[in-house]
């Protein structure tokens, strides 16, 4: 029995380890386009770029693969999935057959489609991180295009190194798509207080070696970094005729439209109780939890056992200067936002409420409320704003009462 995994990011690598834990005998082959032993991506925009040695963390120890009979193939880009004859093909025309296939090809950064766009550096891999680190150390004036998590992390890290930093955001606010507006405002205020020049409603028109021409002004910069979001790597899945819509469509068991092909991590668009009834997440929590679910389901498929559904309480974090942002749950367009009262200085907790019911929680420098929020969101019954108000903002006491 053979399982092939395409992509050795957090999802693919964790799936390989989980499969091995469940079954000592399955043949497991893990393919990576990259040349590095699988490593953690979240630290790249945090400690890797801004540490002296650009050190990075492996997902599993370098000897794990050999010891556990996981065939790790680096520098190995899969060129084709043949779902009819159940094999994957490489450049060399070499093929490997599978019984079950896991697609975990992740995402790639959007290209900055403006004149001089190629001058902007982007971050996805360890190689990118090392290159950006070198460029930042030489630069004096840095412009970051994109006020999402990656852009904010890089901007705040560079500012800590006393660089002159301008952050350009095309929308009305940084972190606009990700957190409650009042939360984003607070983060923005902090970055401003640290001396980052934030320009909102500002689009880059062109880049040259002197800086960026934007819709509002010309920004002088000797280094431009773009963090304008990512798009799922679906080429292989499209060519294999799998159902596609904002990523690869999977059912609650993470199975694609082909019963022997599963998709996990950033590319998987799975059923979820959201506005559209579906969700695609780019996070460690999602990659890691889907990897474990898919491993269980592949074992279940072989043994004719019951599948397990993927029903997450999504969570995510971002480190920006002295701020730790932690988000749990999924907000939506109809949500109302409620700032938790009676909190200590320097922290912020914002609840997302739909019809008075808690659906998500954003916390700033408040790990405890984040953890409590995850507990509340995973509670069997819906948590209502009235429950929270009864405890005057003390989430921990509410959690205790519910237990």
């Amino acid at each position, binding site marked *: 029995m053979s399982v092939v995994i395409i992509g050795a990011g957090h999802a693919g690598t*964790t799936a390989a380890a*989980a499969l091995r*834990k469940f079954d000592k005998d399955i043949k497991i082959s893990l393919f990576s386009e990259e040349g590095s032993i699988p490593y*953690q991506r*979240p*630290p790249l925009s945090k400690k890797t770029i801004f540490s002296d040695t650009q050190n990075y*963390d*492996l*997902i*599993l*120890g370098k*000897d*794990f693969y050999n*010891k556990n009979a996981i065939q790790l193939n680096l520098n190995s880009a899969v060129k084709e999935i043949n779902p009819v004859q159940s094999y994957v093909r490489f450049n060399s025309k070499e093929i490997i057959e599978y019984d079950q296939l896991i697609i975990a090809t992740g995402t790639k950064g959007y290209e900055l489609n403006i004149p001089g766009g190629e001058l902007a550096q982007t971050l996805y891999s360890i190689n990118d991180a090392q290159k950006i680190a070198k460029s930042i150390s030489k630069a004096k004036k840095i412009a970051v295009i994109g006020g999402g998590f990656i852009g904010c992390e890089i901007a705040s890290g560079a500012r800590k190194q006393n660089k002159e930093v301008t952050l350009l955001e095309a929308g009305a606010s940084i972190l606009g798509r990700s957190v409650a507006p009042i939360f984003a405002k607070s983060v923005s205020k902090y970055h401003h207080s640290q001396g980052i020049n934030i320009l909102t409603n500002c689009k880059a028109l062109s880049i040259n070696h002197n800086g960026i021409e934007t819709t509002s002004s010309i920004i002088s910069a000797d280094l431009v970094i773009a963090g304008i979001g990512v798009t799922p790597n679906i080429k292989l899945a499209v060519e294999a005729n799998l159902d596609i819509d904002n990523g690869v469509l999977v059912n609650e068991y993470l199975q694609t439209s082909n019963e022997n092909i599963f998709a996990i991590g950033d590319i998987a668009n799975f059923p979820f109780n959201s506005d559209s009834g579906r969700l695609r997440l780019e996070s*460690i*929590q999602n990659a*890691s*939890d889907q990897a*474990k679910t898919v491993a269980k389901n592949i074992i279940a498929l072989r043994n004719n056992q019951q599948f397990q559904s993927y029903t997450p309480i999504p*969570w995510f*974090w971002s480190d920006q200067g002295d701020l730790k942002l*932690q988000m749990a749950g999924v907000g939506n367009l109809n949500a109302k936002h409620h700032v938790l009262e009676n909190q200590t200085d320097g922290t912020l907790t914002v609840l997302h409420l739909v019809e008075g019911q808690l659906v998500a929680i954003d916390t700033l420098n408040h*790990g*405890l409320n*984040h*953890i*409590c929020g*995850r*507990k509340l969101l995973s509670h069997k019954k819906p948590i209502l704003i009235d429950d929270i108000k009864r405890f005057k903002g003390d989430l*921990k006491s509410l959690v205790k009462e519910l237990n």
Partner: protein
Amino acid sequence: MALVKYILEDNSEVTIEAHVGQNLMQIAIENDVEGIEGACGGSCMCATCHVKVESVNGVELEERSELELEVLEMEIDEVATNSRLGCQIEINKEIESITVRIESIQSI
């Protein structure tokens, strides 16, 4: 330098010489110690590096932070008085040796 002994689920033991500044989660991953995952990269946001501290020589460990305890209580069915997150125990100059028992990862 400190000696870190991990007792695995099958009761076998692995002893590693660790450097000051590393935490018990990082040390375990770098050395392929089975049963420690570190899904959140040491951000104190999951409990996939749960260990029970059996003994410490050289110095007493600092108490668990409120946050660490909350994470343990959320993720672990039965939190013992010596339950810790490996990522929150950093090797310092005072620690001569430490022995921890690895608990099965709850989320798998």
